[in-house]
């Protein structure tokens, strides 16, 4: 990592010299955005980036205020892609995408109505139906972790990339063998909309995007004809009851699309980021090994410390003034959720990973206000199951020595592409237990 001193007091690791140059594409920022976040906070809560044509918001309070202000800020940023599409791509895509907004793009009453309709299955009590499946899937993944590598394996490929997808397939009533394909389609869609692709890469993404939507349409038809015991089948039946005259199938398609996109990579990345934090702060891992009842607190700290969604957006609907800046109607706002989570005004020593901290719970990882993450209880169920399983079964788990992860280039998502781990000495399966504690030092 470069430690070249810069002449305007940025912490090392921040590649920008002026806030107007900020973009989420700088390699140093993709690798580790936190030095930049800290530097931006030192300049004030809001700055305008000319390079992005976005107002970049970094303080916890300003972010939360914007997320909760539905009067002056809209969530609708449909087709406001991060890389500019060439005309031919834009035309082809316009023919594929439904012209009705997805859940994340809805405002006001239509959004409230959709949320009220979708929420029933996401309460902690209702999610109990899927707990056994989550545990079974986590166990399968742990069985496979070191199956081939003689004590080493990539935990992203074997576990964190796999388990959330399998849970989601169960939840949505999609055959499990479709998981890998849907993952590829979903990554492609995210990269097209939120990444920094070249025109050629964008063109190559059109056909998979078409295939993705075609599959989703087909799956809605199948689940309507042959409902299962899954959530999507129930949603389809309820939606038909609610609209007996004229079912808006595009909305059902959007619901399925929203869940297929929001329901796996976010959790995969949370697991990867959390695991990186734990294994590079070994004393925190050791605390969990010694007392797995700390897992729920550790999950809260992982959610704060390195969120899988470090940024999100809003658009100003009226001329307004915020923190001394005049912001014209139509302005796009880039909200640095990952910065808000470490804001000095909210949390003390926020750059430190401390699973026992008591001041970290006001994070904005799941957004705030009306769009608060619908699936947060499912995410927490998965994270708790995953980490409890890992610390009890592999107490000596460690990262491959010297490994530094790389991260995919996306304005809104952050997670390691791979994390090679080693079983460590004295695994429980090798009959340890007593020796585990000694070797944890």
């Amino acid at each position, binding site marked *: 990592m470069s430690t070249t001193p810069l002449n305007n007091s940025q912490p090392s690791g921040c590649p920008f010299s002026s806030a107007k140059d900020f973009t989420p594409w700088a390699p140093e920022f993709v690798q580790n955005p936190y030095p930049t976040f800290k530097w931006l906070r030192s300049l004030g809560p809001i700055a305008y980036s000319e390079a992005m044509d976005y107002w970049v918001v970094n303080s916890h309070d300003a972010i939360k205020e914007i997320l*909760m202000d539905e009067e002056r800020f809209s969530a609708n940023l449909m087709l406001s892609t991060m890389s500019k599409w060439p005309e031919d791509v834009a035309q082809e895509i316009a023919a594929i995408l439904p012209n009705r907004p997805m859940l994340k793009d809805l405002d006001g009453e239509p959004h409230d109505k959709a*949320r*009220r309709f979708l*929420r*029933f299955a996401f*309460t*902690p*009590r*209702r999610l109990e139906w899927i707990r056994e499946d989550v545990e079974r899937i986590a166990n399968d993944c742990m069985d496979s972790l070191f199956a081939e590598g003689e004590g080493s394996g990539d935990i992203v490929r074997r576990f964190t990339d796999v388990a959330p997808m399998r849970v989601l397939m169960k939840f949505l009533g999609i055959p499990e063998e479709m998981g890998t394909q849907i993952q590829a389609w979903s990554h492609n869609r995210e990269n097209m909309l939120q990444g920094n692709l070249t025109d050629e890469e964008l063109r190559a993404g059109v056909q998979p995007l078409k295939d993705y939507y075609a599959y989703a349409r087909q799956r809605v038809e199948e689940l309507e004809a042959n409902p299962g015991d899954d959530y999507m089948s129930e949603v389809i039946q309820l939606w038909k009851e609610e609209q007996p005259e004229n079912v808006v199938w595009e909305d059902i398609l959007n619901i399925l699309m929203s869940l297929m996109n929001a329901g796996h990579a976010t959790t995969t990345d949370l697991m990867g980021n959390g695991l990186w934090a734990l294994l590079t702060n070994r004393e925190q891992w050791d605390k969990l090994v010694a007392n797995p009842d700390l897992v729920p607190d550790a999950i809260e700290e992982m959610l704060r410390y390195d969120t899988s969604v470090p940024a999100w957006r809003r658009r100003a609907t009226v001329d307004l003034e915020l923190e001394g800046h005049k912001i014209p109607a139509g302005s796009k706002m880039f909200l640095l959720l990952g910065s808000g989570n470490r804001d000095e005004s909210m949390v003390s020593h926020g750059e430190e990973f401390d699973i026992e901290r008591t001041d970290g*719970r*006001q994070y904005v990882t*799941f*957004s*705030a*206000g*009306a769009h*608060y993450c619908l699936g*947060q*209880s499912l995410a927490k169920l998965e994270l708790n199951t995953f980490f409890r399983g890992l610390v009890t079964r592999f107490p000596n788990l460690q990262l491959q020595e010297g490994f530094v992860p790389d991260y995919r280039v996306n304005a809104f998502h952050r997670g390691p592409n791979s994390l090679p781990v080693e079983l460590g000495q004295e695994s429980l399966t090798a009959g340890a237990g007593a020796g585990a504690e000694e070797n944890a030092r």
Partner: protein
Amino acid sequence: MKITIDGSKCVGAGNCEADMHEVFEVQDVGPTKVISQPAEDQRRLLEIIIGNCPARAIALEK
């Protein structure tokens, strides 16, 4: 000391129930309900729960 929930703001996130299930109950439909009033000695935890509500929907009356 009385806990109230503003039904027009509540989004049913369920953080309050996770922290204090004897007081808060998320509903399948509609805002979260207060199912019992908390004891006076729980004030500090309640203040934390109020701060953590992502919709700022919980209020504490004296």
